[in-house]
């Protein structure tokens, strides 16, 4: 999966209509909430077989950090 594709998935999980960029600070995105954190955990497990904790997702500062959690599964 490419970074752009994953970003599209993250946008869907957030249920965000506006665009998303890697530099965006999660805390400043209105759609970023605890429900999205839960969906991220489930999505990474389903997409990549990666078991994340909610804590690890909440420790992310930017969209790029979220993509970083996928490691070498994205190119």
């Amino acid at each position, binding site marked *: 999966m490419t970074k752009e594709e994953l970003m599209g998935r993250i946008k869907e999980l957030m*249920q965000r209509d506006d665009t998303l960029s890697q530099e965006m600070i999660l805390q400043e995105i209105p759609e970023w*909430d*605890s*429900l999205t*954190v*839960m*969906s991220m*955990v*489930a999505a990474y*497990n*389903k997409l990549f077989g990666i*078991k994340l*904790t*909610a*804590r690890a997702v*909440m420790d992310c500062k930017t969209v790029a950090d979220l993509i970083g959690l996928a490691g070498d599964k994205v190119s």
Partner: protein
Amino acid sequence: MSKSLISGAKISGIAVVSADNLKRMDDDMEYYNGDKKKLEKVKKMVGLDKRYVVDGQTTAADLCESAAIALINDMGVNKEEIGALIMVTQTPDYFLPATSAYLHGKLNLSKDCAAFDVSLGCSGYIYGLWLAFMMVENKSAKTVLLLVGDTISKLTNAKDKTVSPLFGDAGSATLIQSCELDRKTYFSFHTLGLKYDRLIVPAGAFRKQKNQETAKEISYGDGNTRSAENLYMNGAEVFDFTLEEIPLAIKEILGFAGKTQDEIDYFVFHQANKHIIESIAALSGVPSEKAPLVISEYGNLSSVSIPATICGAMRQDLTGPNKNVLMSGFGVGLSWGTCLLGLKDIYCPEIGFYKGGNHD
């Protein structure tokens, strides 16, 4: 000890009484600043829609009393044979005496009857069953009445969205009796006491008694408001704990019982949150149709979630041949209990609604 195998005891009947004041998620719009999109997201993901709460005078004991009366009358139970009454609650009537003693009197049970309380929440039904099954197995009692009830709505702050929209109030009564020795029931229990403060009401008992400070409502950065006398939950940590431990506990009990997952007809999970239940099921390879949900109908009922799921979603399937059922309760403590048992010919009426009573 964390595992136990018990022979010769069974559940004969379960009755659940829900509180009667309906609350709908849509009524809570004000707490979401009118953000309908967010509210719909919560409804869809957490599975919340309806829940029922008690009025100021009604307690868990009242709901349990009502469930117990229904069960005893409908099943024609001889009260003299009830050798023990166990009350599982985290919302007792009094600091003392035990709520079980109050209920023993209200139900007019025999003097030859043990009665005690157990202070557990989400794992409480499994603990209650375990104690009751042990008493029947070692012949301490022929019949045990297990009452499990909570009114968590009395502990939440309406302005705290992390807990308030989740919880409904209910009480239940379960009858445990002796049966043929080849019926085996498996239990396992775990505790993570270092995380005792991840789900907690910090003030009001004896570690921190109520005062002006503890009553003060504090607004937190996440937009939620509560006092130290209200229920607090660290949602992220409880979520992580659940997804890490519960799939392991399921694997453990299946191994202990020498059963495979296909041999299990139902996986009854504590109704914490729809997304959590679906995630545990997915991680454990359990098909979703084997993991019934009643959270949209009643909310998270604390220790009553498991009996409410049985009476709410499985009752028609429990009057015939044996069903293998795995029950999993997890949460406050942090504490989790798992049970694998056979259910057949169970008296299990539809969930009733509390009709009031005399509060004295």
